[in-house]
């Protein structure tokens, strides 16, 4: 990618006491791209995100937003960022609208029209004049999204944004984020535990474990064409398939072969003519979950690192 990244994380490290929570993490985020941020509990996702928005100071390293450092040029850089950190906490004794108004005053040049527009976008227009204390978690999430979008940010950073949304809400939220990313060219960074959600939402996935970035993958690359074939007797099927030059791995009761769809009828023919009974032939998608667990070694909680 030759494009200039909107967000650059450079050699970010955080040490609290003697623990190295984040170790030398570098990551670039690009315009119009949705990047998922995955990691087991305690891997340092939230710490990284807090450092990216200036809530925490990195021990070392810097975060640049559109070329400006969040550490030394806070006001200029943060105004391009929309943030939801964990649950969006609002002033419960004020209405949703008053909350938005309150936050909008801290930005430059947000008109009442813009507030109405955002309220419309997140579908809160019917309840916006009620107190936040009467809102459900899902509605608070929507309001949180509204406050993050108020100032038309170039970069959206969301920590667990779909927490508490109903399935329809999650779907709507996903569509909305994808729209914002593709139409407005916003870079989106989403951390979540919901792997299936990340898989549907993101273009790219960054995986963090024990404070280290262990992998960055494009979601498209994950989708290698694979088929699951279950035929009896097993030994015969293995013989035929590997004899035909397919890469074969055992899976469940049968085998997985890595191949394109056009080779499947041929493979079935071969099995039939060899006298095997075919019980199942189906496309197999390795879920992100499988890959995630593979990458993080079972996803156990990071061990404590003391030096």
């Amino acid at each position, binding site marked *: 990618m030759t494009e200039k990244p909107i967000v650059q994380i450079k050699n970010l490290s955080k040490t609290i006491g003697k623990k190295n929570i984040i170790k030398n993490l570098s990551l670039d985020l690009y315009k119009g791209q949705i990047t998922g941020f995955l990691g087991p509990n305690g891997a340092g996702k939230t710490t990284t995100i*807090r450092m990216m*928005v*200036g*809530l*925490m*100071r990195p021990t070392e390293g810097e975060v640049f937003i559109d070329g400006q450092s969040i550490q030394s040029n*806070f*006001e*200029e850089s*943060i*105004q391009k*960022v929309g*943030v939801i*950190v*964990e*649950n*969006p*906490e*609002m*002033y*419960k*004794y*004020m209405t949703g609208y*008053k909350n938005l108004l*309150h*936050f909008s*005053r*801290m*930005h*430059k040049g947000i008109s009442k029209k813009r507030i109405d527009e955002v309220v419309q976008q997140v579908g809160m227009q019917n309840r916006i004049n009620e107190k936040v204390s009467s809102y459900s978690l899902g509605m608070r999430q929507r309001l949180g999204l509204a*406050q993050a979008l108020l100032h038309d940010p170039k970069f959206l950073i969301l920590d667990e944004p779909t927490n508490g949304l109903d399935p329809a809400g999650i779907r709507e939220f996903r569509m909305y984020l994808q729209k914002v990313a593709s139409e407005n060219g916003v870079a989106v960074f989403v951390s979540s535990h919901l792997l299936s959600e990340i898989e549907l939402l993101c273009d790219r996935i960054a995986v963090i474990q024990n404070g280290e970035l262990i992998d960055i993958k494009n979601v498209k690359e994950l989708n290698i064409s694979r088929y699951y074939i279950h035929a009896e007797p097993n030994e015969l099927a293995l013989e035929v398939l590997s004899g035909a030059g397919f890469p074969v791995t055992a899976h469940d009761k049968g085998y997985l072969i890595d191949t394109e769809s056009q080779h499947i009828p041929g493979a079935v023919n071969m099995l039939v003519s060899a006298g095997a009974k075919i019980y199942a032939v189906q496309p197999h998608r390795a879920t992100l979950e499988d890959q995630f667990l593979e990458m993080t070694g079972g996803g156990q909680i990071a061990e404590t690192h003391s030096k």
Partner: protein
Amino acid sequence: MEQENKLDHGRFAGCHFVRIDGHYQMVKFSKMGHEEETWQEVAANQQANAEAMLMDPNLSGQQKDYYEGQAAIAEYRLANEVPAFEYTSMQQQVIDAHAMLSLVTLFTVIIAAGIVASEFSQGTIKMLLTRPVKRWKILTSKYITTMIYAILLSILTIAVSALAGLIFFGIGDGTFLVWNGSEVVEGSYWIEALKMAALSFASVWIIGTFAFMLGTVFRSSSLAIGLSIFLMFTGIQAVYLLANYEIVKYYLFTHTDLTQFYTGFMPVPDITMTMSLIVLAVYFLIFMAVSYWTFSRRDVTA
């Protein structure tokens, strides 16, 4: 930046004024059974009292000035038939209204302690600190809000005192006299009331700032409120305990009551107004420095 105040504040202030009201009722009824002294008797007593105090060789210069003034005023009243305000008059109540500011301190402490701490406990702090506004500006706006609250509540207190005085007692006869150092002249009781209120405000201000610091540092409003109010009551007692040691001169509560220079009641006689102002300013700077330093450096994990 606008800080939205909670509705509670109105309620606080409400109780506060009911209390002022109650105070007037009590004053009124407690007077009923008593045999009234004539103003001449009161003035004669005051003069005798002041002269007796002046015999004390341990008096500081300021106390001496004060009692000389008192004696002169009392003498003038008797010689020229100029009575003072009755205690049950609106004017005297206005002059004494500054005593009510200790209640303002109480409410200010509650606001000051909670204004930053509650952002942390509600979790809204992360919303606030991810705006394009530097942390020191946010803290400054919080502090200014607290002080505006304290000032408005003080003004309301004086105004309600005046109003309650007017309703319960009405405007009484009498003249307010001041000693300008060489002679006794007529003074404005409003100016006297405002002067005393402004001096009393120093204590609201410094204890409010202290509570603000505690709330910012510990992020717990209950701790900050508790500690501030505890110190507000015990701190002054400690002045008496420490009175024989040099350190008392640098102790905050020796200096919080600036009205002491105008009432002659000084637990530590050899301090001056200038010294008090300097000590208060130093404490203020320390409280502020601690607040700003912790607030702008803190890693927010709420």
